[in-house]
């Protein structure tokens, strides 16, 4: 029952929100506010995933990015109290902006110039069941490697931030 106007309007509103939040991350002057705008841009990107009919990935995005990675970043900001909190740029911000603009120009040119083989496909049915099968049949090896990667990252993070204790108890 959804009309096309609704989805189109939703896409453009969400796209505008996400880009504005990403720009605010760059230009706001307080680090904590930048992290909160980043969390908001994560939620905006999750909305774009819903528009692109990827419901499972959208919910996973909110759960992991806005729920965990943003909290992790706020903890990191809190654990570095004497650091510079003003979200300032290095002296090379001019060339960085030029490079970013050039990359954007290349991407937009390629997007408009290629003739894509578009399908007239409808929106996907629910993706969770098919994704579950895809994770366990063709892509089971990357799935297991990802779990090993996560365990390694957890152990690495703990080891890096452990206090040096002489004669530390086990």
């Amino acid at each position: 029952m959804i009309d096309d106007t609704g989805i189109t309007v939703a896409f453009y509103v969400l796209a505008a929100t996400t880009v504005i939040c990403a720009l605010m991350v760059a230009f706001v002057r307080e680090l904590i506010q930048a992290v909160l705008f980043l969390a908001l841009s994560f939620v905006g990107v999750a909305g774009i995933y819903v528009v692109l009919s990827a419901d499972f990935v959208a919910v996973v995005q909110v759960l992991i990015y806005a729920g965990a990675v943003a909290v992790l970043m706020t903890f990191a900001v809190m654990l570095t109290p004497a650091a510079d909190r003003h979200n300032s740029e290095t002296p090379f911000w001019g060339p960085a902006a030029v490079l970013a603009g050039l990359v954007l120009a290349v991407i937009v040119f390629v997007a408009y110039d290629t003739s894509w083989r578009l399908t007239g496909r409808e929106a996907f049915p629910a993706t969770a069941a098919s994704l579950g099968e895809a994770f366990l049949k063709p892509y089971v090896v990357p799935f297991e490697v990802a779990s090993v990667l996560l365990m390694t990252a957890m152990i690495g993070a703990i080891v890096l931030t452990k206090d040096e204790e002489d004669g530390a108890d086990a």
Partner: protein
Amino acid sequence: MPDLLLAHVPLEHVLTLGGLLFAIGLYLALAKRNAIGILMGVEIMLNAVNVTLLAFSRYVVSPRPLDGHVFAVFVITVAAAEAAVALALAVAVYKHRDTVNIDEIDLLRW
């Protein structure tokens, strides 16, 4: 129900959105002074890549269209692991140097 998204949001617009987010993330990663600011740029770049992957999975002919979704979930997983390790590194460096300003962490020896 005939799909109405295709008729009104062209693929190029979604790819432009992905490119725009990628460019903003690239600027953040290159131009910020705080290590956490750089990490924020990297996360925005990974999100942009996911948007592009899912757009292709939705619009373009493919034998297994859900591969884009699988790849996007793996990107999210790796990004979360990498954010954890990068922030642990930043906190560890802060303990020795009292700063996470990348302009001041420029000597290889302690």
